[in-house]
């Protein structure tokens, strides 16, 4: 299991577009990907769940990646966050 934290820089937070792109990135991973914010956890592969978090700017997201390719996929998700969120 791999974990990393990321603080949202986008002023609008995790709204439909970035959330959609994040879910697409998570869906491309074979690992189980969970994202947690303010004590609430969501399956990062489900847009409905991710948008339900209502994550705003400066909120800290904690990603948990679990699977046989977790190291590379964790790095991929981290790179995605740096670029898009």
């Amino acid at each position: 299991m791999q974990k990393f934290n990321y603080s949202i820089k986008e002023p609008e937070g995790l709204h439909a577009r970035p959330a959609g792109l994040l879910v697409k990135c998570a869906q491309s991973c074979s690992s189980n990907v969970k994202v947690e914010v303010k004590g609430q956890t969501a399956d990062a592969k489900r847009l409905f769940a991710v948008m339900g978090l209502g994550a705003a700017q400066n909120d800290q997201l904690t990603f948990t990646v679990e699977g046989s390719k977790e190291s590379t996929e964790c790095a991929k998700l981290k790179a995605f966050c740096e670029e898009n969120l």
Partner: protein
Amino acid sequence: MIFHKKEKSCAIYAPVSGKAVELSQVPDEVFSGKVLGDGAAVIPEDGTIVSPVDGTVATVPDTHHAYYVRSKDGLEILIHVGIDTVDLKGEGFQNFVKAGQNIKTGDILVKADLNLIREKGLNPIVPVVITNMDAVNRISATKGIMEAGKTTLITYERK
């Protein structure tokens, strides 16, 4: 009416009055490229946005520009009012609902000031997207003139 088919076709109604177009015509690749899921879009003639199904309001963002509704049969439907309207930070949107509340088809979700959206240089088109496409076998979108809460926008077959 008299004959009941085994595979029931269900409806998502138009959330706003206007002209329905294909999702691929929305000038935002997150919608047109079906990144979020499949559906349809309505070019609005009126700013009153209603629930397209009977169900529950799942999320209401502070910016009141996008609503998530879960239908009674478990479809997750995103109704996004305009493109890049998140930038308005709620200006021009009057919210009518709260997360978790039950709603009927035609109940008002939000009233949007279409003139203000256009004045800000934004496109008020309303994409309606099923984001859990794994729950349906197939969908079909209707084009043409729509009346909010009355005209069928999308028909789908539940898995």
